[in-house]
């Protein structure tokens, strides 16, 4: 079944409503806690059965070190195998308040395998500093095909041009 991003986001928002700051619930029943670790973001994944994973992911130079994510959203989950999430941060502003109210957002594919979590893909999704912007809706998760379609109004490939990309998650839990 194809589920538009806004619908999954609404469903997840309801799931996450009770979660404390720095923590989001997983559709399968676990949770993801997040915090800053220097210039990285530390994700602690607690699976439904209680198993814990930790992974540190990189941001880029448009995000200030020691800044915790403003928001983390779970885009999709293949229980016990893959987690797709986004993390957003305030932009580092330039002079004349350029991007002072801006945001930088990343997409991560986290693969759970062999008792550990690892980031197997990351993409810049939206950025005030780099002029990247998602369309509305920006994602479409196809649960049956294990694939995520991303639609940018201004994508990373060609400056300022709309772009679409599909990420398929293979049987290993990693993007093909």
């Amino acid at each position, binding site marked *: 079944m194809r589920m538009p991003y806004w619908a999954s986001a609404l469903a997840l928002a309801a799931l996450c409503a009770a979660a404390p*700051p720095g923590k989001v619930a997983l559709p399968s029943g676990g949770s993801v806690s997040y915090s800053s670790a220097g210039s990285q973001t530390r994700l602690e994944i607690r699976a439904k059965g209680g198993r814990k994973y930790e992974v540190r992911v990189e941001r880029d130079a448009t995000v200030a070190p020691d800044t*915790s994510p403003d928001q983390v959203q779970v885009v999709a989950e293949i229980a016990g195998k893959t987690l797709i999430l986004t993390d957003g941060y*305030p*932009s580092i502003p*330039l*002079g*004349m*308040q*350029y*991007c*002072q*109210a*801006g*945001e930088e957002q990343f997409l991560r594919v986290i693969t759970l395998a062999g008792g550990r979590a690892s980031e197997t893909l990351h993409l810049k999704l939206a950025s*005030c500093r780099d*002029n990247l*912007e998602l*369309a509305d809706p920006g994602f479409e998760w196809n649960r049956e095909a294990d694939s995520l379609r991303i639609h940018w*109004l*201004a994508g990373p490939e060609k400056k*300022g041009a*709309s772009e679409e990309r599909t990420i398929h998650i293979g049987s290993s839990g990693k993007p093909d």
Partner: protein
Amino acid sequence: MNFNKPGSNSIVTVPAAGAWPSVAFETDASGPHSWNWTIQWGSFQKSGTAQTAGNTWDAQDAIANCGGTLTVNVTAGKDSGSIKVKIQGANPSASDAQAYLASKPGSDGFDKIIQHESKFRHFTAQGEPVKSFDNGYGMCQLTTPIPAFEQVWNWQQNIEGGLALFATKRAAAIQYLSQNGRPYTEDQVRYEAVCRWNGGSYHVWDSKANRWVRNPNILCDSKTGNIGWDMTDSANTGKSEAELRQRDSGSYSKRPANAHWKYFGVCYADAILG
């Protein structure tokens, strides 16, 4: 060897109009001269050599669009000499800067940003380019990409550097507003571009009215430049601007992680464009 002109440590001021003046050198020697020059201001530096058949040289072209301390070492046969000259700048009037901006396509709205942020001031009282705490130079406070020496000293080139950044926001504004063939006005492009300069989009699509409208969920603190509240946040819903300001203004100087206020480009555009 002595310099007949200019005087040592003399000051040359670039006029407000921005055309670099003649900086004439003359020695009391004769014959071919070799002029080695360096102009430096802070971390910016430019050097070169000029050869002349006689004892005069005009540095006007060599140092065009640059300022600071100009050091000239000259040799003529076995004679040599050295001299330093200060190059300073004078601020353009706001109307001159606005007229320059108006001559550039796609600048609509950027004049308001410069007016708001730097009041078109490019030079300090000492005739040096203004420099912000985060190494932003000139009236457009250029930081990244690191500006060239010429963009730091020539206010017109400084404006062009700022305008190049603004152009990306204006292009994004048009792309956003024109998506799915939706209609938009020039006024909406101006608000959208200025908003995006600060961050985020100004308009949302009202499908019932079939037009773009200002994001109705953002309430701005009209006493600040770009602070506001997302009124869909349950902590803010139903409260007035005055109530929210009273609750939050104590934390405006350093935003706590759990704050219910944010910086909004929408509020920035409202504050700047009215």
